């Protein structure tokens, strides 16, 4: 199952690796440019006293990647009616769909971890650890939003009933709003562990749609 998903999505993830790592690299180069223009002390001061985090451009990138990842992985299944075939595999349809979800979730988690590691090392060139973690902790909810968006869009795609699909869209928008409620640095520190748990638990949501799909509701 994992190999099938890899064949289906490998080009997409290759593009994602190129785009997201390029954007992280761009942000680091941009900081380097600002250091040479205004001096390191100025950047430290705006980080410490004016809540600047320098990587604002990345705010919605993981969200977008998560949405597109789910569309790329699940829309072809529905358009080419491959999901119906999956339902009839002897290994169990819930297990099959769960494996598909875990593949996408794992790939995105790996991609986002790579992005964060790159940011961590890049920022350490210019800033003390206190500022580096301040920035990374501010960016963490954006990456969790990306993982959540992937699961929620998969849930929407797999839903066979249109009325329910619209309800799923509304619920998903409200859920994703939670990740973008405050632009303040480190505003999510207390909530982050709980959000991470909820994102993992939400992997069970698309299964509800699959069960309805299996029951033939359309």
């Amino acid at each position, binding site marked *: 199952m994992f190999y099938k998903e890899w064949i289906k999505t490998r080009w997409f993830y290759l593009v994602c690796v190129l785009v997201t790592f390029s954007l992280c690299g761009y942000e680091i180069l941009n900081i380097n440019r600002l250091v040479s223009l205004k001096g390191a002390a100025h950047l430290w001061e705006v980080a*410490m006293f004016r809540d600047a985090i320098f990587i604002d451009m990345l705010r919605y990138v993981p969200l977008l990647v998560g949405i597109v990842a789910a569309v790329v992985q699940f829309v072809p299944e529905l358009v080419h009616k491959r999901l119906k075939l999956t339902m009839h595999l002897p290994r169990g349809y819930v297990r099959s769909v769960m494996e598909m979800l875990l593949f996408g979730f794992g790939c995105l988690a790996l991609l986002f971890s790579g992005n964060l590691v790159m940011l961590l090392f890049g920022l350490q060139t210019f800033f003390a650890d206190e500022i580096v973690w301040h920035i990374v902790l501010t960016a963490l909810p954006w990456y969790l939003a990306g993982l959540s968006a992937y699961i929620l869009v998969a849930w929407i795609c797999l839903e066979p009933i249109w009325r329910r699909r619209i309800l799923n869209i509304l619920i998903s928008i409200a859920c994703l709003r939670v990740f973008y409620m405050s632009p303040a640095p480190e505003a999510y520190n207390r*909530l982050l562990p709980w959000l991470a748990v909820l994102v993992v638990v939400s992997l069970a949501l698309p*299964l*509800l749609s699959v069960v309805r799909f299996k029951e033939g509701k359309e």
Partner: protein
Amino acid sequence: MNKIEKLLVIVGRIFFVCVCVFLVVWILTWAFHFAADTSDKPPFTLYSADIDDFAMFKNEDSGKHYYDSHANEYTEAQFYEMLPTFYCKQLIVNEKLPDTLYGRPVSAKFIQNENFTFKTAPAAVNKREIALYPLMESMSGRVDLEMPTDVFRITGNAIEFVDMATNSVDETKSDLFTKMFVQKGFAFPAHIISGNPTTKKEYDNGYLITDSNDKLFHLKMQRGRPYLRPIELPDGIVPKHIFVTEFRNQRSLAFISDTENRFWMLDAKNYGLRKAEIPDFNPETDGMMIIGNFHDWTVSVSSGDQLRYFALAADDLHCLKSYEVPTEEPTQLQRIGNILIPIQLKFLSGLDGDVWPRVAVLGE
């Protein structure tokens, strides 16, 4: 479906119901507050020693309204004269500034030098800060203050200065300061580090720091050398929040709130503490504004919906007068909303910047 698959589907169903309930309560709370919340600003209020009462000013649709806590009305000119230290410049223009105030000969320069404003809000106190601090040169001999090229951090066993340009620790300076800390009996790490890291002030008084035993120290840098002075506090006083004042009159070094929510002024001359005669004040939940002059301070303390004013004597901080602004009754819409949405959920609060679910039952 096997047992695990069935369990996963059950988890999915429970999660779906929980998310739906959570979102409905959250969205209804938001819609209710969007429709029902009003923002009626309290009147500008200052203690006037002339009338021994709180003088108030409100800009209403019908025009400017000057009055006191007993509803006596005043004209604009009377209002200025009742608050001569606050409206000092206006009285100079009107040629109405007296030579003597409260039995003391005064000049415009003296009044302006003694005036100060202090403000603290829970959102600022509870804000997550980066634990790096610039230590300015306190005796540079120059008029304007300058930001240093390094910042310090206090670790478990030393004070470290990090050069911002190279992002590396200045070992020589760090050792020099650490030796002074050890010599003065500072127990690493620090609990509270408080200062005003800005050049937009008259002078620099460095930082007030408490060590791991809650002992208070005053840290400054004078001509590149460390100045660290332990400050003896009376028994039973454990600082919880410290606000370095750096007012023009140089009378106070800081305001301190302790673990028992008492509010103190730390004298700049003898490092003595003076207790402000106000009820409990917790900077984490209460806001405070002080508008002070050489004779008295007007202290406003806001706690939730409650707003109280205290007039304190500037010399010993005893309470001259107090006034509590009557709390507004909830509107009809707010009452209905509290009944219709008995459980309310918000993620944001004015007390801190954290995103965190906050549940209120029956409009608490």
